[in-house]
C-alpha cells in the first residue's frame, strides 16, 4: 500500500489491547481516510488513548492489525502537554523539525507559516512551560503538523481549552485534513465529533456505534423526545433546563415534544440500550 492512498487509508482492524489482565480494547475497527477527520469518542477509560497509541505504534496490540504509514509520516499529539516546557516555542518546533529530518529551508518556512497560523509568532521566544493552556495545545498541534504528516493522530487536542482556542485548533486540523492528511482524533466533546467524517463511539473497550454522524444517529433504536420534567419510569437525562427521554419502542410520551436528536443523545441511548441488553442477558 502506498502512503495516503488505497481503500480505507490507515486504521486498525479487530484491534485488541491488553495491559496485564485488563482488556483495554476488544475487537475494535477504526478507519481513517485521507483528507478527512475520523473521531473517537467515549468516556474516561473507554479506550480512546489505547486506540490512538496502537495506531501510533507505542502500544503493542494483543490482537488485530494496525495499518499506519512509516514513522516519518505520522504526526502525534499526546493527551499530556507533549511539548518540552523548558524549551521555547521556536526551539520546540526546531527540535521536532530536526527529528523528522526537515532541511533548514523547509523548517524555516514551515515554522514561519505555522507560527502565523497559530498566532504564536509573538510568543516564539517564550518558554513552552509559560504558555497558557490554549497556546500550549496550539504549539503541540503545530509540532504535529510541522512535517506535513500523512496521518495526524491527536489525543484530545481541545480538552481543557477555552472555546475560542477550540475553534482555532479545529480550524488548524480541518485545514490539515483539507490539505490531504488523514486525521484521527479522540475527543470527549460530542459537538466536535459531529464535525468529523466518521465517528467511532467506544464504551469499555468495545465499539458501541460507528459510521458517519448521520449513520450513527440513524442506528439509534427507538425515539428521543424532550420533556420539561423528569418522567416517571422512562430513561431520561438532563440537557440544559429540560429533559431528554428515550422511548425504546418509539411510543409517544404525553407532554413531550419532538426534538432533533444529536450525537450526544445517540451516545447516551446507545449506552442505555447496551445496559438494557446486558440486564436482559443476565436475567
Amino acid at each position, binding site marked *: *500500500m*502506498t*502512503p495516503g492512498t488505497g481503500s480505507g487509508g490507515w486504521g486498525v*482492524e*479487530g484491534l485488541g489491547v491488553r495491559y496485564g489482565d485488563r482488556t483495554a480494547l476488544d475487537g475494535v475497527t477504526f478507519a481513517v481516510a485521507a483528507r478527512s477527520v475520523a473521531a473517537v469518542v467515549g468516556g474516561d477509560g473507554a479506550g480512546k488513548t489505547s486506540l490512538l497509541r*496502537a495506531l*501510533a*505504534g*507505542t*502500544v*503493542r*496490540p*494483543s*490482537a*488485530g*492489525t*494496525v*495499518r*499506519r*504509514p*512509516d*514513522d*516519518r509520516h*505520522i504526526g*502525534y499529539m*499526546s*493527551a*499530556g*502537554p*507533549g*511539548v*518540552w*516546557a523548558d524549551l521555547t516555542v521556536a526551539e520546540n518546533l526546531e527540535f*521536532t523539525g530536526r*527529528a*523528522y*529530518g526537515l532541511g533548514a529551508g523547509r523548517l524555516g518556512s514551515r515554522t514561519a507559516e505555522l507560527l502565523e497560523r497559530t498566532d504564536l509568532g509573538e510568543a516564539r521566544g517564550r518558554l513552552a512551560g509559560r504558555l497558557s493552556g490554549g497556546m500550549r495545545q496550539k504549539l503541540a498541534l503545530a509540532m504535529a503538523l510541522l512535517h506535513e504528516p500523512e496521518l495526524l493522530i491527536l489525543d484530545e487536542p481541545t480538552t481543557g481549552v477555552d472555546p475560542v482556542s477550540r475553534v482555532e485548533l479545529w480550524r488548524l486540523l480541518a485545514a490539515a485534513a483539507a490539505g490531504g492528511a488523514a486525521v484521527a482524533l479522540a475527543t470527549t466533546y460530542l459537538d466536535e465529533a459531529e464535525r468529523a467524517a466518521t465517528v467511532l463511539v467506544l464504551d469499555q473497550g468495545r465499539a458501541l456505534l460507528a459510521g458517519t454522524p448521520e449513520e450513527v444517529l440513524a442506528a439509534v433504536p427507538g425515539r428521543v423526545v424532550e420533556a420539561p420534567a423528569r418522567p416517571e419510569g422512562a430513561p431520561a437525562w438532563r440537557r440544559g433546563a429540560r429533559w431528554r427521554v428515550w422511548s425504546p419502542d418509539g411510543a409517544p410520551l404525553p407532554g413531550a415534544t419532538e426534538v432533533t436528536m444529536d450525537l450526544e443523545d445517540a451516545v447516551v441511548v446507545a449506552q442505555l440500550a447496551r445496559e438494557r441488553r446486558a440486564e436482559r442477558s443476565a436475567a
Partner: protein
Amino acid sequence: MWAMAMKELRQMRRDRRTLAMMILLPVLLLVVFGYAASFDVDRVKTVVVGPLAPEVAGRLPERLEVVETRADLGREEAVEALRDGDAVVGIVTGSGGASILVDGADLFSARAVVTELRGHPELPEPEILFNPTLDTSTIMVPGLMGVVLVFVGTIATALGVVRERQSGTLEQLAVMPFRPRDVLLGKLLPYLGVAAVDLVVIVAAGMLLFDVPFVGSPLVFALGAVAFLFVTVGAGVLISTVSETQGQAIQLAMMIMLPQILLSGLIFPLHAMAAGVRWIGYLLPLTYFIQVARGVMVKGTPFDALLLPLGMLAVLGLVVLGMSIARFRRDLAPAGRRHRRHGKAEADATTAGAGAR
C-alpha cells in the same frame, strides 16, 4: 490527630520505597559501620628482596605479612611492587643493611606500619614513597573525584530521563522517527560532556589547591574515567527506568551512592573490612575507579598493572549500560516497531500478520 496519623500510615504503607529505605537503611548502616568501618589494619602485605631476604623474612613483626621473598630481586623491583599495588611494604636487604619502603598512598596501612616499627628500634627508619608526608588530601581527592562523577553521572542522568517521562514528552519521543539508541545516546551525550568537564576541573583544583600529584599517564587515567562514567551514567538510566518521579529517582540514586562511599575504600581501607562486607565493595564501580585514580595520580601505576580495575570497570560498564539500554528500549518502543530510515508504509500486525499490508 488520630485521623491524621492513620492517613499518614496508610500513605507510608503504599510508598514501599520510602518504607524500605526507612527500614533497610538503618540496618545497612549498622552492618556497614559494624563490619566495615575500621581504620585498623592488622596485616600489611610485604615483599622482601635482596641477598638476605629469606633470613630477614622470618624475623619480621607479625603485622608485616610476607607475600613474596626473592633474594634475586633488588630495590627497583620492590618499588615496582609497591607502585603496582602488589604490596604495601618492601624490605630491601643487602650488605649495607636493610631499608624499609612503605606505600604512602595506602594511608592507613602506612600509618599502621610506621607505628608498628616505632616499637622495633632495631629496625631501620621506614622510607615512605609516593606520599611522603602521609597527607590525607593526596589520597582523598582522587577518590572524591569518583564520588563527584557518581553524583553527576547517576543523579543528573536519572533526573534528566525521569523529567522526560514525568512531563509526558517521552511518549512524544517514542512516536518520533528516532531509534531508541539515538534517543538514549543523544540524551546521555550532554551529561557525559558535563561530567568530563567536571573531571578536568576537579583534577585541576586538586592539584592547585591540595598539591595532589599527577605522576602517571593522563591517558590511562582518562581511560578509567571514561569507563567509570559509562557505569555511572548507565546506572542513572537504569534508575530512571524504574522511577516514575524525580523524587523516586533521587531516593534510588542515594541508595546506590551510599554503599559506594562507604564500601569502596574511599574512606575505610578495603582490606581492613570483614570479608563478608568486603565482597560488596568488589562489586562496586567506585572501588575500581579509586584504584585507578590513586594509582595513576599518586603512584604513577602503569596501564598493565591496572588491567584488573580497568577490566572490571569495562565489564561493569557493559553490563549496566546494556541493561539500561534494554529497559529503555522497552519503554520507548513497546510495539516492537522497526524504525526505518527510509521506506513507505509500515504495517504492524500481530495476530493477523501479513494481512495488514
